[in-house]
C-alpha cells in the first residue's frame, strides 16, 4: 500500500484537495452508495430488531407461529419482570436464574482474558528471545488453535473431557495413577454429578482449559507484533544503566506493549463474553445451568423452550448489558491510549 507517500508528502496538495472534497459533499450520491446495503439491512436487521422489541411485550410462543394463527397477547412488562424474578420461568426451565448467569458470564470473560493476555505476552517474549532455535517452527505450531473452526474445537474438547474414555482423565491416570490408583481418575468433568472447586463447578475449569488453549495464540501474535516495534536501543541503554532482566521486562516491555494489548484485551473480553460454542457444546450448561452464558441461555429460550416473547425480552436485556460493557471498555481504551 502507498501509505508511505501520505506521510512523506507535505500539504502541497491541500488546495486541490479542498476543491475535490467540496464537490463530493453532494450527499445524493452518498445515499445512492448506501442504498443497497441500507435496504437489505433495513429488512433483515433493523426491522427484525424493532420486531423483537415489540415481541418482548407479548407472549409470543409456539401457538402464534402458524401464519393463520391469532396474534400474540400484549403482556406489558411481564416478560422483563419475569426474567429478573425468575420464578415463573423456573417452572419451565428449573435452572433459570438471570443474575447467576450474568455474574458467571462476567467472571467467565474476565478470568479468561487475564489468562489469554498474560500467557500470550509471556510466550511472545519467550519466542522473541535472541538466539533461540526453531523459532519459526514453534510459531507455525502455536498458531494452529486459531485456524480451527470454533464448533470443532468445542465438540472435540467435549470428548477430551469424557469421564470414562477422555484423554484428559487418561493423561491424569498416566501421570498420577500410580499414586492414587487409576480408578480415582474417572473425573466427571462435564457431567451433572461433578464436584465443585471453591465456588465454581468443575466444568468451569474444563471450559477454562479449553478456552485458554484456544485464546492465547492470537494474543501472542498481537504481542509479537508490538514487541518487534520496540527499539532495541532502549534495552541497550537499560543494560548500560545496569538494569536486570525483570527490571527491563516490567520497565520497558510491558509499558511498550500496553497500547497494542489493551484494545485487543477489550476485544477479547467481549468475544469471550459472547462465546457460544464452548458452553453450548462442551458443558451444555451443566451442572444445573451453572455454566450457562447469556448467549446460550438466549438460544435455549428459542431452540429448546420456544418462548419467543421471553427470548426477545432476554435479548433486549443483553443489548443493554453489552452497551454498558462497550461504554466502559471504550473508556478504558481511551484512557490508556491518552496516557502514552
Amino acid at each position, binding site marked *: 500500500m502507498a501509505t508511505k507517500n501520505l506521510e512523506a508528502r507535505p500539504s502541497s496538495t491541500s488546495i486541490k484537495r479542498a476543491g475535490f472534497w467540496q464537490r463530493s459533499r453532494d450527499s445524493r450520491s452518498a445515499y445512492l*452508495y448506501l442504498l443497497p446495503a441500507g435496504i437489505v439491512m433495513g429488512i433483515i436487521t433493523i426491522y427484525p430488531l424493532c420486531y423483537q422489541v415489540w415481541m418482548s411485550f407479548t407472549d409470543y410462543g409456539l401457538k402464534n407461529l402458524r401464519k393463520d394463527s391469532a396474534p400474540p397477547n400484549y403482556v406489558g412488562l411481564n416478560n422483563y419482570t419475569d426474567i429478573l424474578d425468575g420464578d415463573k420461568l423456573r417452572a419451565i426451565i428449573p435452572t433459570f436464574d438471570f443474575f447467576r448467569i450474568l455474574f458467571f458470564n462476567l467472571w467467565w470473560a474476565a478470568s479468561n482474558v487475564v489468562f489469554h493476555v498474560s500467557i500470550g505476552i509471556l510466550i511472545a517474549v*519467550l519466542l522473541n528471545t535472541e538466539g533461540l532455535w526453531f523459532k519459526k517452527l514453534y510459531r507455525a505450531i502455536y498458531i494452529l488453535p486459531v*485456524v480451527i473452526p470454533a464448533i470443532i474445537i468445542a465438540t*472435540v474438547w467435549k470428548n477430551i473431557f469424557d469421564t470414562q474414555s477422555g484423554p484428559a482423565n487418561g493423561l491424569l491416570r498416566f501421570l498420577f495413577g500410580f499414586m492414587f490408583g487409576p480408578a480415582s481418575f474417572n473425573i466427571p468433568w462435564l457431567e451433572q454429578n461433578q464436584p465443585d472447586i471453591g465456588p465454581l463447578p468443575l466444568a468451569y475449569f474444563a471450559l477454562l482449559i479449553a478456552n485458554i488453549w484456544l485464546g492465547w495464540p492470537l494474543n501472542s501474535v498481537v504481542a509479537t507484533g508490538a514487541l518487534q516495534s520496540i527499539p532495541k536501543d532502549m534495552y541497550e541503554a537499560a543494560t548500560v544503566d545496569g538494569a536486570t532482566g525483570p527490571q527491563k521486562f516490567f520497565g520497558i516491555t510491558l509499558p511498550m506493549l500496553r497500547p497494542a494489548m489493551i484494545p485487543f484485551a477489550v476485544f477479547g473480553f467481549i468475544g469471550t463474553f459472547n462465546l457460544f460454542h464452548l458452553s453450548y457444546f462442551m458443558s451444555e450448561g451443566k451442572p444445573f445451568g451453572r455454566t450457562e452464558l447469556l448467549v446460550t441461555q438466549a438460544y435455549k429460550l428459542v431452540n429448546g423452550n420456544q418462548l419467543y416473547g421471553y427470548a426477545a425480552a432476554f435479548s433486549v436485556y443483553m443489548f443493554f448489558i453489552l452497551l454498558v460493557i462497550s461504554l466502559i471498555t471504550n473508556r478504558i481504551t481511551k484512557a490508556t491510549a491518552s496516557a502514552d
Partner: protein
Amino acid sequence: MAVTPTQQRRVLLGFRSKSKAGFQTEKRLPMRQQIILQLICLFVAFTVLFPIVWVVGVSLSPLNVSRPTSIIPENATFDAYAKVLDKPTSNPVTFIELAFNSLKLAVGTSFFSVMLGVSAAYAFSRFKFRARATLMLAVLAVLMLPSVATIAALFTFLNQFQFGDFNIRNSLWGVGLAITSGLLPFAIWNLKGYLDTIPKDLEEAGAIDGANRNQIFLRIVLPLSTPALAVTALFGFMGGWTEFYFCWQFLTNPRDFTLAMALANMTGQYARTTPWAQFSAFAILVALPVAVVYLFLQRYIVSGLTAGGTKG
C-alpha cells in the same frame, strides 16, 4: 474498536516479520539457557498439539471400538473416513451433500455482504453527509449484539413468508438471510476501516483525469481494496461454512442440513452410538479446508481480526 493504521501495520508484521537486524548475526544464547527455553517451548508445543494429534489418532482407529483410549490406534484404518463420506449421520445424506449446503451458505452470504458492504463502506469513508454519524452509530450498535440474540425475531419474522409448501424460514435462503443480517454490519465496518487507510491522492488524480465518482469507485478504490475484500469475504466464508445456531433452529428438512448440524448430531447426548472415530474423521474433513486457507492467508487475517468488530 478503533485500531490505528500503525497498530494494524504492527500486527500485520505479526509472527512472520524479521527484525531489522536480520542480516546481523543474532546474539548467541548460553547453552544452559537455550536448553531450558527449548524445554518450555516443547512443553507449550505439546499442549497445543495434544488435542489435534488425539483427534487424528482417533479418526484412524477402527469403527468397532466405540471409545478408543490410546492416542496411537491399533489396526489403524481409514474406515471412519469412508463411512463418514458415505453417510455421516442417521439421515440419508452424504458428506458431499452436507458440504454443498454449507458451501452455498458460505459463498452466498460472504459474497452478498461484501458486495453490499463495500459500497456502503465507501460512502461512510469518503462522503460527508448529514446522517453519516447517526447511520454509522446504527451499524455499530447492531454490530455489538451477538447474532444469537436476534434469533427469536428472525425466526418468527422469516417464518411468516409461506408460499404454498415453501417456507422461507425452513430453507437455506432463510438461513442465508439470517447470517447476512449479522455479517453485513461487520463487512461494512471492517471495509470502512480499511478504506480509511487508503490515501486519497489516487482518487484525486483520477478526478483530475476526468473520472467521475462511479469510475473512481469501480476502477480505483475497488482494485485497491482487494486484500480487505478478500479477508472480509474469507471471514464470511468461515462463518457460513460452520454456522450452527441458525441452521439448527431453522431447518427441518434433511436435504438442507449442513456440516455443522451433522457435527452437532454426532456429539452431545443424542450421539452415544456414534463411534468417536467417525466423529473425529468428520471433524477433520470439515476443519481441514478452512485451516489450510487460513494458514496461507494468516498474515492478512490477523490484522483483519483485530480491526474488526465484536460480532460473535
